[in-house]
C-alpha cells in the first residue's frame, strides 16, 4: 500500500464518525473528520486527503452537494468519494454515482465490509497514481518525460504573459562516454546530471528529459536570473566527477542554450527553437558553456 493514506470522514453525527473511525483503525491510515459539508470543503482546501467517506443527510449542505462541489474543483476532483449513508433507496444510490461517487455503503455498515471497500479504493488509487506516474515521468531519471514536459510547458506558455525562459541542455560528448564506459555508466551519468540540475532549480520550474541526452527547463524568472542559474548548474555539473565501472573517474560537461519569451515567439516550439539554436552555438563554440544571445559569439 502507499504511504499512510489520509482519509476524511464527513458526518454530522459524532457517534457515526466514532464508529467508522474505530472500524478503520486497524488499517494504517491517518484519519480526519469533518462535522459538516462546509467544514469538509474547508479542510480539503487546506489538506490533501486521499479518500473521503461522505454522509448524505447532513444539515446545510448535503452529501450530494458536497460531492458535486468537490468534482468541480480541479484540486479535489480526483479524490475518491465513498458515500456512507442510511439512505438505501434506488434514487439515492443512482444520484450518488451521478454526482461522482466511487462507491456507496449503506449504514449501518458491516465494519469488515467497510474496511474491504476502503482498501479496494486505496488499491485502485495507488494503481492509478502509479500509472499516472509512469505515463508522465522518464523512467530513468524520474523527471518529466517529453510528453508531460510539452503538456505542462504549453499550458504555462499560454498562461504566463512574460518572464518565461527556456533552457536547452545537452550533455557534451555523451556518445563518447557510452562508447568508452558502456551504457550502464551512461545511464548513471544521465541520472547524476539530472539530479544535479534538479537540485539547483526553483520549485516552479518545469524540468523534463526531451531526448536521449537532451533536457529542457522552463523557468519563470528574468533573463539575468536564468543565466545565473544556468551557469551555476553548468559549473556544478562540470565540477562533479563520475565513477566508471573500472574505477576511473571522469568529468563530463553540459552545454546550455537559452531562449527568452518575446512577443514574436507565439508558440512554445518557437521558443524552444531559439534555445536550440543557442545550444547549437554553444556546441559550436567549444561546449561546456551557456549561450544567451547571438551577440555573445561574435
Amino acid at each position, binding site marked *: 500500500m502507499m504511504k499512510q493514506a489520509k482519509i476524511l470522514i464527513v458526518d454530522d453525527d*459524532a457517534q457515526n464518525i*466514532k464508529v467508522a473511525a*474505530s472500524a478503520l483503525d486497524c488499517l494504517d491510515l491517518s484519519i480526519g*473528520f469533518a462535522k459538516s459539508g462546509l467544514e469538509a470543503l474547508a479542510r480539503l482546501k487546506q489538506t490533501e486527503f486521499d479518500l473521503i467517506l461522505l454522509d448524505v443527510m447532513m444539515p446545510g449542505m448535503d452529501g450530494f452537494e458536497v460531492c458535486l462541489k468537490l468534482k468541480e474543483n480541479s484540486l479535489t476532483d480526483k479524490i475518491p468519494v465513498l458515500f456512507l449513508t442510511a439512505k438505501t433507496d434506488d434514487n439515492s444510490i443512482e444520484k450518488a454515482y451521478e454526482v461522482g461517487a466511487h462507491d456507496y455503503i449503506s449504514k449501518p455498515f458491516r465494519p469488515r465490509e467497510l474496511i474491504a471497500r476502503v482498501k479496494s479504493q486505496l488499491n485502485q488509487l495507488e494503481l492509478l497514481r502509479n500509472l499516472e506516474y509512469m505515463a508522465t515521468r522518464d523512467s530513468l531519471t524520474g523527471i518529466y518525460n517529453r510528453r508531460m514536459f510539452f503538456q505542462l510547458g504549453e499550458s504555462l506558455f499560454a498562461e504566463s504573459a512574460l518572464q518565461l525562459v527556456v533552457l536547452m541542455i545537452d550533455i557534451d560528448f555523451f556518445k563518447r562516454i557510452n562508447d568508452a564506459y558502456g551504457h550502464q555508466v551512461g545511464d548513471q551519468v544521465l541520472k547524476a546530471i539530472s539530479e544535479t540540475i534538479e537540485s539547483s532549480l526553483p520549485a516552479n520550474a518545469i524540468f523534463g528529459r526531451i531526448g536521449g541526452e537532451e533536457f529542457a527547463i522552463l523557468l519563470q524568472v528574468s533573463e539575468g536570473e536564468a543565466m545565473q542559474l544556468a551557469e551555476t548548474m553548468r559549473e556544478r555539473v562540470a565540477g562533479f566527477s563520475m565513477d566508471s565501472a573500472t574505477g576511473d573517474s571522469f568529468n563530463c560537461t553540459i552545454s546550455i542554450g537559452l531562449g527568452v519569451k518575446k512577443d514574436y515567439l507565439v508558440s512554445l516550439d518557437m521558443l524552444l527553437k531559439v534555445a536550440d539554436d543557442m545550444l547549437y552555438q554553444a556546441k559550436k563554440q567549444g561546449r561546456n558553456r551557456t549561450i544567451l544571445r547571438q551577440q555573445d559569439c561574435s
Partner: protein
Amino acid sequence: MTFLQSAEFSSDFRIIANLGCAFAALLLLTPFAINNLIQGRLFLGFTSFGIVIVSGLNAWSIINGKFRPFLFFLVLVPCIIITLILATQKLGIIGIVWSYPAVLAFYFMLSERQAWVGNSALLLIIIPLGWSVLEDAVAVRVVISLSLVSVFSAIFIRVISYQQNRLLEEKRRAEAANRAKSEFIANMSHEIRTPLNAVIGFSELLEQTEVTAKQKSYLQSINLGGKTLLSLINDILDLSKIEADKLTLEPRPVLVRQVFEDICHIFGPRARDKNIEIRLEFAQDVPSCLMLDETRIRQILFNIIGNAIKFTHHGHIKISIWRKNNNDVSAAVTQLRIDIEDTGIGIAKDQQHTVFASFEQQEGQNNRQYGGTGLGLSICNKLVQMMDGEITLVSVPGQGTTFSIHLNHVFECQHDMEEKTKLHQLMNRIQFEPATVLIVGGLNRNLRQVVGILQHTSLKLIEVNNIEQAQNVCLLEKPALLLIDMNILEADNSDIKTSLKLIDTPIFALLDSKEPEPQAIELRDCDEMLNPPIAPQPFIKQILLHLPHQMVDVFSNDNTPKQSFELSMEKNDQAMQEINQVVIPLWHKAEKTGIFDDAMAFSHALNDIAKKYQMSGMLVLSERVKQAVNNFEITELEKVFSEFNQIIQHWKNNPDDETS
C-alpha cells in the same frame, strides 16, 4: 339545521343543487314576471322580479365560489309562498292541495329524510292535476314551474345525502384503518423495545466489568445508541397510543414545585454547557399539591424545555408557573398556566401552526440539523388536550419563543406531601463525600425504609444479614457508618465495635417497633438510636452529624468551569513561550485538518511541556485529548480544544497576572 350541518360535508353537491335551483328560478320566473308586469299585475310582477334578482345574485355568488345559504332560502321560501297564494286565489281548495307536494318536497329537502317521498308525491299529483286544470294557463304554468324547482332541489339534495353517507362511511373506514395502524405500531413498538432492553442492559452491565478504556468507550456508544432508539420508539408508542385512544391519564397528587425543580436540575448541566441560564419563577399562589399525571407532565416539560435548550444558543430560558384564576383563591379547581420562554432561534410565522402536527419539524430546520423526529411537540399537544388544556406559542424569529401550557381544570389536593417536598429539597442539596454505609439486618422492614431514603445519595450501601457477614465486609472495607437491627445487636453478646474492629465508626441502632423501651441498649455503645417509624428528615439530619458532606445550591449557575480557573493559575512565562512556539501551531493544524494524528501530536507536545513545567491542568488536558483521539470521541475533542483556547485567550488578555 340538519341540512346545513350535513351540507358542510359535501360542498360540491350543495353547490350543484343550489345552482340548479337558482337557474331554474331564473329561467321559469323571468317570463312570468315580465308577463305579469305587462298585464299590470304589479305585485306579482315585482315579487317575481325580486326572486329573479335574488336567484341571479345567488347563482353569481356560487360561480364566484362563495356559498350564501340565506340567498338559497330567499329563493325557495318566496317560491313556496307565491305558489300557495296563486294556487288558493285561482284554484281555491284544490290549489292548496295542489301546491302541497311543493311544500312537502321543500320539507323533505330541509329535513333531508327520504326525499324520494317528496319526489314521487310531486310526480304523482302535479302532472295529472296540472294538465287537467288548464283554464288559467298562467297560474298553472307558474305553479308547475315552481313545483318543478322544488323537485329539482329535492333530487339534488337526495344526491347530496347519498354522497354524504358515502363520504361518512369512507371517513369511518379511514379512521378505523388509522386506528388499526396505530395499534399495530403500538404492538410493534413493544416488540422492538424488548431486544433493545437487552442491548441497553447488557452494554451497561458489560461496562461495569473489567474492560479497557477503548472497550468502555465502545460500550458507551452502544448504550447511547440504544437509549436514543428507545426514546424514539417511546415517542412513536405514545403517539400511536394516543391515536388508538389507548392512553389514559393517571392523575395523582403531585408536588408541583418538586417536579419543576427536578427538571431544572436535570437540564442544568446541558444548559451550563451551552452557557444558557435557566430561571424558574414559581408564583406564590400556586397550590403546592395538585392532581396531575406526573409522568405525562414531566414528559411535556421535558420536551418543551429540551427543545428550548436545543434551539437556544445564548441568553436564558425562563419557566414561570402561575395561577390564572388567582382572584378566586378558595376555589378547589385551579387554572394553571406554565410559560416556557427562551431566547432561541424562534419559529417563523407561517410555521407556527404546523409545529404541533405529527412528524413535522420546522421548514429549513433540516431534520438533521437539530435531530429529533418532530414527534415531541405533537405528543405534548395531544397530552395537554387530554388534560383539558391547550398549548399556545408566541414567537419572533431570531428573538425567541414562548410556549404556554394552559391547564384549565386542575384539582387541588391536601398538603400531606409537604413533608416529602422538604425532604426532597434537602436531599437535593446534600452531597455526601464518598463513604460506605454498612447495614446489618437486611430483612428488617424498618431498615428497608432507611435504605430507601439513602439509596439515591452518593453513599455506597452494603447490606448484610448478620454479624459474621458484617465482619467479612469490614475486612475489605471500612464503613463510615453502621446501621444495625437491634435484635441482631442483642443476640450478639460481644462488643460490637471491637468485634467489627470499628472503634471510631458511629453506630445507629434500629429499635424494634414492638419494644419502645430501650433501656438495655443504652449500655451498649451505640451513637444514635432510631425509633420506628423513621421520619426521613430527622434521620437525614442525624446522619449529617456523622458523615462528611457538602451543602450545595441546586440552582447555582456557575458558568465558569472550575478547571479553567485552576489552569489560569498555572501561568508561566517560559512555558507560555514554548506553548506559543510549539503547541499552538500544532493546535491550529489539528483544528484545521481535523486529522486525529495531528490532534495526537498536539497532545504529545502539550504533554511534554506540561510535564516539564509541572502544569497539572495542562497535563489533564493533554491526557483528555489523547483519550479522545484513541476513542475517536470528536465531541470531547472539540470541547477540549475550546477549553484550551479559552485558557490561551485568558493568558493573552491578562499578561500581568503573575501567579506562577
